[in-house]
């Protein structure tokens, strides 16, 4: 169980203080697939980084199974939007990186790595270097690497943000299958309502800066979902309305033109 309580984050900058997050409270159920959506610059990434332990909240705390999170560790795996494979390591050595640090013997960690490479459909590419792989394949490998470390929670910061639309749909389907097989808690940031609708158990809508939880929407539809079905569209319409409001509200600020699909925060 992951509990976020009263998280606020204020960044100090030369031009003054920027309040990125204000009073975030959230209880994530075990094995839940939770999506975060919100206007650009609303602090989604900051929240995820705090949960990962890469950033510290100004106030509040995050508890994972009643243990306070203060620094990164292998209990929470993360997949970044940017390509994050180590370019000097072969795919299999990328996937076994975490186990290598824990001192797992080579044949054992390769065995585990192969299992996860097979899961993401990259078993034929274990000897390749990252530059030889397409964008979608690199993100698959990054997912395999995060899973091979056996984290309790998988944090994903727009992992499919830089792949093309078709690949993106395929990867979403695969992610759901993998999530079904491994049953990790997944926290997934996206700019795309469509993506959130397809993946999430619940969607957390964040407000414009300072990021606050505007609403948490329970999707409650069976998977696989049909992207264009009436039920999906009803919720999609609601999400769209919420986001439009937040976007307009954020327009007093500097980011008004960035819209939903552009930029990253």
């Amino acid at each position, binding site marked *: 169980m992951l509990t976020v309580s009263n998280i606020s984050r204020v960044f100090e900058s030369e031009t003054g203080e920027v309040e990125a997050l204000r009073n975030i409270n959230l209880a994530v159920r075990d094995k839940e697939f939770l999506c975060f959506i919100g206007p650009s610059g609303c602090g989604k990434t900051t929240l995820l980084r705090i949960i*990962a*332990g*890469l950033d510290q909240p100004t106030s509040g705390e995050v508890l994972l199974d009643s243990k306070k999170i203060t*620094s*990164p*560790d*292998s209990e*929470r*795996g*993360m997949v*970044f939007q*940017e390509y*994050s494979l*180590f*370019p*000097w*390591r072969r795919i299999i050595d990328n996937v076994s*990186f*975490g186990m*290598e*640090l*824990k001192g797992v013997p080579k044949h054992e960690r390769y065995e585990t790595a192969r299992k996860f490479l097979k899961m993401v459909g990259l078993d034929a590419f274990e000897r390749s*270097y*990252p*530059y030889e792989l397409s964008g979608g394949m690199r993100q698959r490998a990054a997912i395999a*690497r*995060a899973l091979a*470390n056996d984290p309790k929670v998988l*944090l994903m910061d727009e992992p499919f943000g830089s792949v093309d639309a078709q690949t993106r749909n395929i990867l979403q389907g695969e992610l759901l299958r993998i999530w079904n097989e491994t049953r990790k808690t997944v926290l997934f940031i996206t700019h795309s309502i469509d993506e959130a609708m397809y993946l999430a158990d619940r969607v957390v809508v964040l407000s414009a800066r300072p990021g606050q939880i505007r609403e948490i929407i329970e999707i409650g539809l069976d998977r696989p979902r049909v992207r264009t079905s009436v039920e999906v569209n009803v919720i999609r319409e609601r999400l769209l309305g919420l986001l439009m409001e937040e976007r307009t509200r954020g327009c007093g600020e500097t980011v008004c033109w960035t819209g939903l699909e552009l930029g990253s925060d």
Partner: protein
Amino acid sequence: MAAGAGSVKAVRRRRYGVEIASLFVLVVIWQLAADNLVGNAFILPSFTEVMASFYTLQGDMLHDIQISLMHFGIGMAAGIGVGVPFGVAMGWFRTIDRIFDPIIEIVRPIPPIAWIPFAIIWIGLTHTSAGFIVFIGAVFPILINTHAGFKNVSKVLIETAMVLGCTKNYDLIRKVALPSAVPDIATGIRIAMGVAWMCVVAAEMFGMTSGLGYNIWHWKDLHRMDHVMAYMILLGFISLSIDRAFRCLVERRLSGWRKGIVAGS
């Protein structure tokens, strides 16, 4: 088949034809100029005279190459041994950077040759003393490039490693920053080798009784400019071979994950 192989060979021969012709023309012009235009072996020894010098001096040259390579080796080994660890420490730890940066910025612009008097007073007219001058020339390019390589390590890769459980400085340096900086370090070493070779010649001219640099000065004093020219050509060829060998070595090592990374060509 036979015809095919033949045409491939013809293409290859044609490819180097211009280069070979260029060198050939240079030699011819040199020979004609020396014989007919200058007519004085003290001012411009001819090609054939220089070739004769190579023949006469071949025994000495072999010995001199050994001595010079020793000076080069001492200096480069010390340069790598000091430059890489300092570059790593300064690139990784902000305070160490701030402590050493002003010192380095003041010492670095002093030409290595200016250290010769002190090298002789401190270490005497020894091989170590020549190696010291070479070291002064080699250490800064290595240090600066290692430092830059560490500064340029992608933040995403560091954070990726951290969420995979790689949180200690030692592990992060060893597993992420150092491999990521290898191309920069290699570039630094390559630049350093060029400087080091110049320093070998200078140091030997001043304080040695053997070595390639010493012989240039020695034969000048004896007015044997054909021998001087032979040693000059030898210096050039050795430098070229060292550079080519190093590039070959590094590129083979790195080509797996990055192509053509060693700067320039």
